[in-house]
């Protein structure tokens, strides 16, 4: 059974600081997704990482994937209040039968404090 673990689950950080959220997964996969969820809202796709060493950046967020370590990171640079949200990573469940299920981590709730 595929397990996806994020840490930390809760993160409170000051504006202007940098921090990294980690996502570990338990089985071979080269497809890793990051989503953002604002309170009371739905999930919004942030990044799709499709190969070992993939790095994507959007504004103050940068995501990377190391498939050998089964690890993805979401790095936050110079945090601002607008980044406060819950961030989820997800991995394809590769059953080999063409099953397009995502297994999600439990999410990291980020609060950026002025």
């Amino acid at each position, binding site marked *: 059974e595929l397990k996806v673990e994020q840490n930390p689950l809760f993160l409170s950080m000051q504006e202007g600081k940098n921090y990294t959220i980690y996502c570990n997964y338990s089985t071979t996969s080269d*497809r890793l*997704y990051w*989503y953002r969820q604002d309170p009371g*809202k*739905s*999930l*919004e*796709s942030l990044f*799709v990482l*499709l190969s070992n060493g993939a790095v994507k950046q959007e504004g103050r967020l940068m995501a990377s994937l190391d498939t050998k370590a089964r690890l993805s990171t979401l790095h936050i640079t110079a945090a601002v209040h607008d980044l406060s949200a819950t961030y*989820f990573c*997800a991995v*394809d*469940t590769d059953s080999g039968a063409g*099953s*397009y*299920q*995502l*297994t*999600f*981590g*439990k*999410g990291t709730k980020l609060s950026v404090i002025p």
Partner: protein
Amino acid sequence: GAGVSQSPSNKVTEKGKDVELRCDPISGHTALYWYRQSLGQGLEFLIYFQGNSAPDKSGLPSDRFSAERTGGSVSTLTIQRTQQEDSAVYLCASSLVASYGEKLFFGSGTQLSVL
């Protein structure tokens, strides 16, 4: 439409009643997914549809849950004889196709409360 539309946004029901949740995907998206989000379990896959292919039902937690997709567009998730543990937010998502690497576009969800 502009995004994935779900209705109702909130549903309160009594234990033992049946409920129907509706999802209208983005126009032109051939793949449609249902996920469930609850405090204890996080986000769980339920079922997905791709075009006219047989749906992948492997995530449905019991035979009280069923879903259909009519005309390759609107989908309905039905929960029969609801139980309190069914209380959760039911999220629908769609994508252009069902393929690795496809972004999913999620609706705002239906908050189901079973009393």
